[in-house]
């Protein structure tokens, strides 16, 4: 389990000149946490922008939020939270070097991730049909131009925020797929390198999950209470 990957260097993200396995794990962890902190700032700007405009146009934002499908949003949240459970179980399996178990849990994670994306795509399609996509076909009949512009602002931020989130999900899904392929192709217990990769990916997946947990109330539950 703690053996050095027999093929150092090919796709090894951590410097191969570091022989000490503890050091390699340490370095990978610090790297991933730093990367996630940049993502916090990246999403943070969008959250700040949304909050500021929500304060400026409370009525319009409440009305706009009402167009969203809370059932689908809520169900998607359950899907994503469960996928996080599976990826955590994959890490547990990887800790024990259990190739089969961790790979299977990664597959479950990926499956739920794809379910999430499918539901999101369906939601967007619904919103498209209701003429709620700014820049494409946004149109609110029987509303005056000023009000409509502010509801459009909500939807602009909605699509940008869920779009950026979905992009991160797609990237994460791609990495999961690659890990699963390597998991199946390899033999014997997981190497330390593979274990580091699974843990790093799991951290990233958890982060994307947490972002969604904040997005849901902000976008879907505006105006409740």
């Amino acid at each position: 389990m703690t053996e050095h990957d027999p093929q150092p260097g090919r796709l090894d993200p951590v410097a191969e000149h570091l022989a000490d396995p503890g050091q390699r794990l340490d370095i990978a962890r610090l790297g991933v946490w730093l990367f996630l902190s940049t993502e916090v700032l990246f999403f943070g700007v969008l959250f700040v922008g949304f909050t500021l405009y929500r304060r400026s146009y409370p009525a319009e934002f409440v009305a706009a939020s009402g167009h969203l499908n809370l059932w689908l949003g809520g169900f998607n949240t359950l899907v994503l939270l469960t996928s996080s459970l599976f990826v955590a179980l994959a890490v547990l399996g990887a800790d024990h070097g259990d190739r089969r178990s961790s790979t299977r849990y990664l597959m479950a994670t990926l499956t739920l991730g794809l379910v999430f994306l499918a539901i999101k795509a369906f939601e967007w399609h619904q919103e498209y049909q209701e003429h709620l996509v700014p820049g494409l076909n946004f149109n609110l009949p029987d509303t005056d131009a000023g009000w409509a512009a502010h509801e459009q602002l909500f939807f602009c931020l909605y699509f940008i925020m869920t779009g950026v989130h979905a992009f991160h999900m797609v990237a994460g899904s791609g990495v999961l797929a690659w890990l699963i392929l390597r998991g199946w192709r390899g033999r014997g217990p997981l190497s330390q390198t593979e274990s580091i990769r699974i843990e790093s990916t799991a951290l990233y997946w958890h982060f994307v999950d947490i972002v969604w947990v904040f997005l849901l109330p902000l976008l879907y539950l505006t105006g409740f209470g």
Partner: protein
Amino acid sequence: MTLAQIPLFPVSASEHATQVDYLFLGLMAVSAGVVLLLTFLILFSIMRYHAGSAADRTPPRINTRRLEITWTVLPMIIFTGIFAWGTSLFLDREKPGETPKEIYVIGRQWMWEIRYPDGRREHDRLHVTLGEPVRLIMTSEDVIHSFFVPALRVKQDVVPGRYVTLSFTPNRCGEYPIYCAQYCGTAHAEMVGVLDIMTPVDYAAWLAGGVPPDSLAAQGRALFAEKGCAGCHTPGAAVHAPRLEGLFGKQVPLADGRFVTADAQYIHDCILLPHRNVPAGYEPIMPSYQGQLRETEVIALVEYVKSLRPPAADMRGPEVGRPDPEMKQKETPAP
């Protein structure tokens, strides 16, 4: 061009400008002092301690920590002093108790439109009277511009969608350039105007020349009727809309619990972004006039609303649609 003609310092056309110059010179003195001191120390070290010299190099016995703290605290004290001076001058631009003359300025690519309350309009030229405090109320029709008069040492970014103010009291006659200081497109460098500070006599003469136009408030009154505002904002109208008489300057309770002052920005937003400030007790049903009114027209409407005195205060106020039946009742005292 002789050396004497090279200007190094702009003319000062207000007391504030002169004060800013003193502060600037103070900063120059501090900076020159620091630069001279450091230059001396460095040159001294280079000359005395260059590689070939036999000067004594035994390390000096000083408390380094104390030295570090000294040259940390001393600059902080000096900086705090400069900060305080600069801040007080900055916050002090409009003296309390003054009633400045308000003039509207609208920036647009690539000119300055000046609208006086008496209805006079100019572009790229602003006439003011010597010694009279002025407050410019400014907005932009398109991108961000910046109204800059070096002779007054003042500048204010002019932002679309909001009113900003710039106050000054001129104390020197003459013509001074107005520049646009915020890059705004192709002809940014050509958006140059003239501030003409005139004696009261000359100003009166300038006023006398030319046909007196409708005052801004009168222009606003015409718009009020033409654009249909009177349809709702009239006593007795079918739609429940706020009364505008005496509104300007009052505190308005909003539907979401906030209180705002009904100033120029408030009136501007009510017309163009009505859902931003819905007054308490009213439905958010006012249509937005965004795109239907130019900023120059909004200014006229603001001046008109400003001119509407509360019903009891001035019976001879401008007529707002039909006479108010309540007002009529107050006129006839009870027997």
